[in-house]
């Protein structure tokens, strides 16, 4: 263990957070996304949970468009769209690997706030001789999970992804970031 890790583990423990449990939760989420188990991914959220990828997090979402701002029905629709209705932007589909790092967490009486750094490697499959297919792209961002306890399980009340290029030109983001 490096000195930093020790300090982080100590401060997480001091804050009453089981940091390993949080890490395992985030790793599991990443695995579900990368293996296409999207229905299972939906169950990680609370009923009124929010999945949010802002362009400008300081602007009110009522007046500023987000890259993604999905409540429960919209998340359900996104997953239905990906799994059951073929569409050009995912034909052929993307493969992804979500890499989760730099996990820290704090806890209050009601919730755990976990921050992490995330790199998503994404690639469209298909005829790699065609422009845009077979090219690995990276999406880099900071993620904040607001987690709550439901029974013995952690659930996501809010997931916010701040891409470093959120207000820059984007390519195809029709997979789950």
């Amino acid at each position: 263990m490096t000195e930093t890790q020790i300090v982080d583990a100590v401060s997480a423990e001091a804050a009453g957070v089981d940091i390993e449990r949080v890490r395992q939760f985030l790793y599991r989420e990443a695995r579900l996304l990368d293996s296409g188990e999207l229905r299972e991914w939906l169950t990680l959220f609370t009923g009124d949970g929010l999945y949010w990828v802002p362009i400008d997090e300081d602007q009110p979402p009522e007046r500023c468009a987000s890259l993604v701002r999905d409540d429960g029905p919209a998340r359900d629709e996104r997953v239905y769209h990906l799994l059951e209705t073929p569409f050009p932007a995912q034909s052929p589909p993307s493969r992804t690997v979500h890499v989760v790092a730099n996990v820290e967490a704090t806890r209050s009486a009601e919730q755990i706030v976990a921050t992490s750094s995330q790199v998503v490697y994404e690639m469209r499959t298909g005829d790699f001789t065609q422009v845009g297919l077979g090219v690995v792209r990276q999406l880099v961002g900071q993620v904040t999970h607001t987690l709550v306890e439901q029974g013995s399980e952690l659930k996501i009340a809010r997931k916010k992804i701040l891409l470093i290029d959120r207000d820059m030109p984007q390519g195809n983001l029709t997979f789950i970031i």
Partner: protein
Amino acid sequence: MLEAHQSPVDQHRRSAPRDLVMVGDGRFRVHTQAYVSPEVFAQEMRQIFSTQWVYLAHSSELPAPGDYKTTHMGLQPVIVSRGDDGVVNVMLNRCVHRGAVVCRDQRGSANFFRCPYHGWVYGRDGKLTGVSMRGGDNGYGADFEQPDGLKVVPRVDSYRGLIFASMDPEAPDLREYLGRATELIDGKLDQSPVGEIRLVSQPYVSRYQGNWKFAAENIVDGYHFTFVHAAFIKLQGKYGSTTGDFHVHQGHSQSEERKYRTTGQSFATRHGHGLNMKPNPTQVQLVEEAFPEYHLQLQAQHGEDLATVLGSNTASIFPNLGIIHHQIRTWRPIAPDVTEVTIYPYEVVGAPDEFNQGWLRSQERFYGPAGHGMPDDVEIFALNQQGLAADSVDWLILERGIGAEKQVDNGDYQGLASGETPQRGLWRKWKQVMA
């Protein structure tokens, strides 16, 4: 970042661009090279983006003196800046000394622009106000021909807040240039009791690996929706307006959508603008039921024209402006096969907040890079460009609905809703200006 992937093989590069559009008795075809040739692209930059009225900004982006944004006219970087007198200036973003850009930010407010290279200073109107270390034997002599300032684009004008510029001092009057498109713009802006829109949201910016004209053609294409957006129609069937559509889209099944896409009419104007105009009964009903006060206000202002004001009216304004739903869209050519599209959702000033929010959510659901509609269009543009690598096939066919097309009073063409009248308008204009 996307890179240009041009084939070095270009057997048609010597044919004149005007020959790349085949117009004849019931025929209308466009040559592959019009989309792929680097020479054609270079000529477009000179003969289209340096002569026509190019859309640059909306006045709400520059509310106060000193406010500026940077953008492009074709490949040329420009600064759009509001001067002390409130007048909008458009200047080339290039120091007249040794050529560096003088502004590196996309938008902001500035008292002056200073070149980072040798410190030459320009006012909000582009006038050169200071040459650093000017005097002495190291500096500039008494006979130095000092430039006036940044090169100013000679024609700048606006229509209802939409700011355009042209590098051609002889360009026609902007209203004349816009022609029938002014009626569509009027209708859109008249959804506001005070006749104004306002850009508040950050825009969506996307890049795609395809020619800019695919974006210009597709925004007014009534034919593609049931194919490219077949999955979206299924989402509509399953989710309706529960996930944010705001009763914007009509079809909840293939047959409903097909029927809707053949409803309405289309136009092509003399200056290459394509219009597609359709009724939008569910929007009218929504406004009537959910926003009764607003509805009364609009009805008092527009009477029987209200259905048109709230219609689903779409424009592709040559060469780089799109207006659809509650958004201003602009496409920027970067290379023959690389284009950047910027979508600015707008608010209708004076409409209820919930109305503007509803529209924002609806457009977020369809148009963002993670949305359920626009990414499919962009994917198709890349597919088009990829397919055109098969350049031993000469022509693309744009003859849909040509038999039902007729020329009207002022020389505009009128066609049916899912024909290719708007696209033919673009290409007639293109043929004319590229000659």
